[in-house]
């Protein structure tokens, strides 16, 4: 094709035009990827979303205000009170270090002092642009650059990836998918050309990935599996050996530098496949050498003996070391991927998280639209070529389809391969039908050929147009809500923002002492730490089940039992989420059974799940509610003075559609109401101090109520004349 180089248009070299066009396309793809992730910033504001991102944000703030070593040695005494958390050693620092580095570079080299919050909010969209570019390179290795460009645009706007990378969703996955694509690209590249250089870059990307996300185990197992399958197919060659051994040796050593990972790569079974394939590859290389030196027949017997020996000793070693406790058994999450009932029975905390549920078919179509049916076609085309790199895509797709089917959150790792394989199929189609050369027979144009080409091109052009509509619709409707601020529509269609969370957290920040301890269920721990900056008892890093159970017990017990727990833990404020007034279903009463269950796991004699149901086994809050339920602290905190809102009639809980009786108002003795947000979503109570004349708090409250003549029903008016 040497004459291609000489082609010029208006005197400009066609290669140059091609490069220019490619750059413009990349910029537009990155632009599309970033801008479609900005819905939530435009609709609400630049705010951190959800729960986990609040912790990452807080850790990043700590990193930019302290030194890196202080960050790694960070002992956080403001969570898990009174235990504290060895935060520096129990997190994946990649995300925080990335945004910290960007912050420093902008500040020191460009003299742009950007607020760290804005960097955190916009980090995920920025990295999505990079992901698209790495997807381009990966797909280019599979087919050619036209498939690569298609894959890049698919990856840029596929909702399956957007779901975890909208602006504000400052989570590990935000950069992890970029690194996943980068690692895979460099792996394919190094395996193809057997280059130590590219294998080293693979190891570096892998190290970055390990520092950023626990899902790195996926790479740790996928690459060895790829090599293993290639070996089974008899495709061993020295390039493969070079690439794999370089990656494994460097990557493993590098990954052990992360404090949280430590010696896991040589002790945990999740990593054993990589080690096993490393050993196997040495043996195969040795066998290959022997084969080239000895006659065929002797080699055969050599092969059989050595295979049996190696296999046997390998299995024995695995069992022996596991039995002796040298290598750890598989982790719980790993089990729950294969034995789908494992989590349900053994780990209630994993089972209680909605991300860990299996995926029904609409989710797949919702997240990838038409790519989901281009996907099998692409895999079929990979089977037609079946070069070494295609084997990789095939293994990746089958494994990840399974994982995504078992756990909703793993849709995220399936989306890239759907994009790659869909792009391969579509670009093959365009290769065939965009080629207008065969429509010409000499000087005549074959009309029917042109029509048939146009039919296919126009219809698929239309589908691509629809694909963009679909992605935009899904992103805008499903994945752009910060969940800290809730949006609803008024009857006239105007937007109504419900900002109770921030209202309450801000109240805590401004009105409570700086060292106040707030008790709430673990879901809100990170948010309280991040937004209210107050010490919490438990948070979303669920490392200590007993401590979580303690909070559950305090919520589920009668006041006098709870008071003891509250006092022992120095709790100053108790915070509950109550959605009954507004009809917000994700509130604490709906989560209450999990609290009871987790508490029952530790104190089976004191807390019994059965007691919280009515005699007929119903979960009720109305007049039929069981005595245990009515006496529990959680019930009292949620429904305290609730029915007063309804002007003498029974209160209506809009989440559970139940009547809260007006004549059975819960009594509060050990805590007093401190704050209730506008829509009653967040209610905060102050824990009373011990009585100053040594009375029981029950007696003291009774006495107070008697003194004021009425029960504490009406709102106390400020006594203006006294103030003057």
């Amino acid at each position: 094709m040497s004459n291609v180089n000489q082609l010029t248009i208006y005197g400009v070299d066609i290669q140059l035009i091609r490069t220019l066009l490619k750059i413009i396309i990349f910029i537009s793809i990155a632009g599309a990827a970033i801008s479609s992730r900005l819905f939530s910033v435009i609709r609400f504001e630049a705010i951190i979303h959800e729960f986990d991102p609040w912790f990452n944000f807080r850790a990043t703030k700590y990193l930019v205000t302290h030194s890196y070593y202080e960050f790694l040695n960070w002992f956080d005494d403001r969570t898990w009170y009174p235990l504290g958390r060895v935060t520096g050693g129990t997190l994946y620092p990649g995300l925080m270090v990335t945004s910290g580095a960007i912050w420093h570079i902008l500040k020191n080299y460009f003299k742009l002092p950007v607020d760290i919050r804005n960097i955190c909010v916009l980090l995920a969209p920025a990295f999505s642009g990079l992901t698209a570019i790495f997807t381009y390179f990966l797909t280019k290795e599979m087919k050619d650059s036209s498939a690569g460009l298609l894959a890049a645009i698919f990856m840029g706007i596929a909702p399956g990836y957007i779901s975890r990378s909208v602006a504000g969703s400052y989570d590990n996955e935000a950069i992890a998918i970029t690194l996943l694509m980068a690692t895979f690209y460099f792996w394919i590249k190094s395996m193809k050309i057997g280059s130590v250089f590219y294998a080293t870059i693979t190891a570096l990307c892998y190290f970055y990935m390990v520092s950023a996300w626990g899902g790195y185990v996926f790479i740790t197992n996928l690459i060895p599996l790829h090599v293993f399958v290639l070996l089974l197919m008899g495709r061993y060659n020295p390039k493969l050996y070079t690439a794999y051994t370089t990656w494994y040796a460097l990557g493993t050593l590098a990954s052990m530098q992360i404090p949280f990972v430590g010696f896991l790569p040589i002790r945990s079974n999740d990593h054993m496949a990589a080690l096993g394939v490393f050993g196997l590859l040495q043996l195969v290389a040795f066998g290959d050498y022997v084969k080239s030196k000895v006659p065929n027949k002797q080699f055969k017997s050599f092969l059989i003996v050595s295979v049996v020996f190696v296999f046997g000793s390998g299995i024995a070693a695995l069992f022996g070391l596991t039995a002796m406790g040298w290598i750890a058994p598989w982790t719980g999450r790993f089990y729950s991927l294969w034995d789908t009932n494992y989590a349900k029975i053994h780990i209630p905390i994993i089972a209680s998280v909605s991300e860990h549920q299996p995926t029904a078919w609409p989710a797949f179509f919702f997240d990838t639209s038409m790519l989901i049916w281009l996907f099998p076609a692409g895999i079929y085309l990979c089977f037609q070529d079946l070069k070494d790199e295609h084997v990789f895509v095939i293994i990746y797709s089958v494994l990840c389809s399974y994982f995504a089917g078992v756990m909703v959150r793993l849709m995220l790792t399936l989306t890239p391969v759907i994009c790659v394989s869909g792009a391969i199929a579509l670009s093959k189609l365009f290769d065939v039908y965009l080629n207008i050369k065969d429509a010409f027979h000499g000087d005549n144009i074959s009309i029917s050929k042109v029509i048939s080409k146009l039919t296919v091109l126009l219809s698929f052009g239309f589908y691509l147009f629809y694909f963009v509509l679909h992605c935009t619709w899904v992103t805008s409707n499903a994945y752009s809500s910060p969940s800290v601020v809730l949006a609803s529509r008024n009857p006239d269609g105007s937007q109504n923002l419900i900002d109770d969370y921030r209202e309450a957290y801000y109240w805590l920040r401004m009105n409570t002492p700086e060292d106040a301890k707030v008790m709430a269920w673990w879901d809100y721990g990170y948010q309280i730490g991040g937004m209210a900056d107050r010490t919490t008892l438990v948070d979303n890093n669920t490392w200590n089940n007993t401590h979580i159970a303690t909070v559950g017990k305090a919520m589920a017990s009668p006041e006098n039992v709870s008071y003891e727990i509250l006092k022992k833990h120095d709790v100053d404020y108790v915070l509950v989420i109550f959605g009954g007034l507004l009809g917000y279903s994700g509130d604490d009463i709906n989560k209450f059974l999990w609290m009871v269950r987790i508490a029952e796991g530790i104190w089976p004699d004191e807390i019994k799940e059965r007691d919280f149901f009515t005699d007929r086994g119903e979960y009720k809050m109305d007049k039929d509610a069981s005595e245990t339920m009515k006496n529990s602290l959680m019930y009292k905190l949620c429904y305290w003075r609730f029915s007063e809102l309804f002007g003498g009639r029974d209160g209506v809980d809009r989440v559970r559609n139940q009547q809260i009786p007006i004549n059975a108002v819960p009594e509060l003795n050990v805590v007093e109401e401190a704050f209730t947000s506008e829509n009653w979503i967040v209610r905060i109570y102050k824990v009373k101090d011990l009585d100053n004349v040594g009375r029981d708090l029950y007696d003291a409250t009774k006495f107070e109520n008697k003194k004021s003549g009425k029960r504490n029903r009406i709102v106390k008016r400020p006594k203006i004349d006294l103030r003057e």
Partner: protein
Amino acid sequence: MKILILLLQIIGLSIALSNNQLKSLVQSKSSKLISLTDENFESILQGKRDYHIIALLTSSSPQINCVLCKEIGPELEIIANSWFKDHPNGIEDDFDLYFFKSEFLESRKLFGLFQLNNIPKIFYFPPTNSTANRNYVSEKVEYQFYQGDHKDLMIRWFSELTGYKFNLYIPVDKTKLAIHAILGFTSVFLLKRYKKYVFNVLKSKNTWGTLSLILILLFTTGYMFNQIRGSPYIIEHQDGRREFFLPGQQTQLGIETQIISFVYGILSILLIVLIKRAPTIKTDSINLLLVSIISGLIFVMFSTLLALFGLKGLGFPYRFIRFIKF
């Protein structure tokens, strides 16, 4: 004869079967989970009882399609059999314990008496001296189902109520063992006999290709969801109406996996025909015909897919063809 039966029935109304009668009944059966029907429940439950009773009210009929019932039944049977293995002749100086299972289709009257509107239910009837009419309705204690290992939870509840200790003997399924042995033997034999063919199949690209594609199609259409949640294959209403699609993004039926994987598969095949087959046809008119037919089919199938997705009800606004007017 008839009078005798009538007499027996009258007596039966006030006095339950004696412990010895029940014991011999249980000893004669191979499964110790005795069936409780409209014919015999009066004689067992009514009146004075000098034994504990645990009864499972359930149904295995496909019309009711109760998933939990199918899980619970075998587990209770294991407990019942284990109990009688430990106590083949009952307990000497205390009340005996019997397990019953009542199938809805055979005991509509019983289910009606308890005014059940959902199943399964497990009731415990303690020994009693009361001879009041239908005393058992008020004497029952109901079991609450919780997540977890059902056998463990039930045993804990039973021993709480009766004060007895329970051991579990989980039987080895002999037929399963035999089937596995036969399967293993024949497959080894066939492998040995047709070694060459087997290796050819294993080496063939097509085998692995087909396998991978089938797996992908199943996994991306919620096969694992059905496996884990045990979703019913199809819902049949009493009036013969059938439901193929459940609304909602988080739920699905077994048949949805089949329909959707079929749609995906057809779409993929059509696309491959466009890529691989159509360009090989050199005659222009035939080529045009084939391409237009296939493009049309893709359009129709894709529209069907969108319409089906719309059935799941998410406010999804896009359709190519409106099959159903809303």
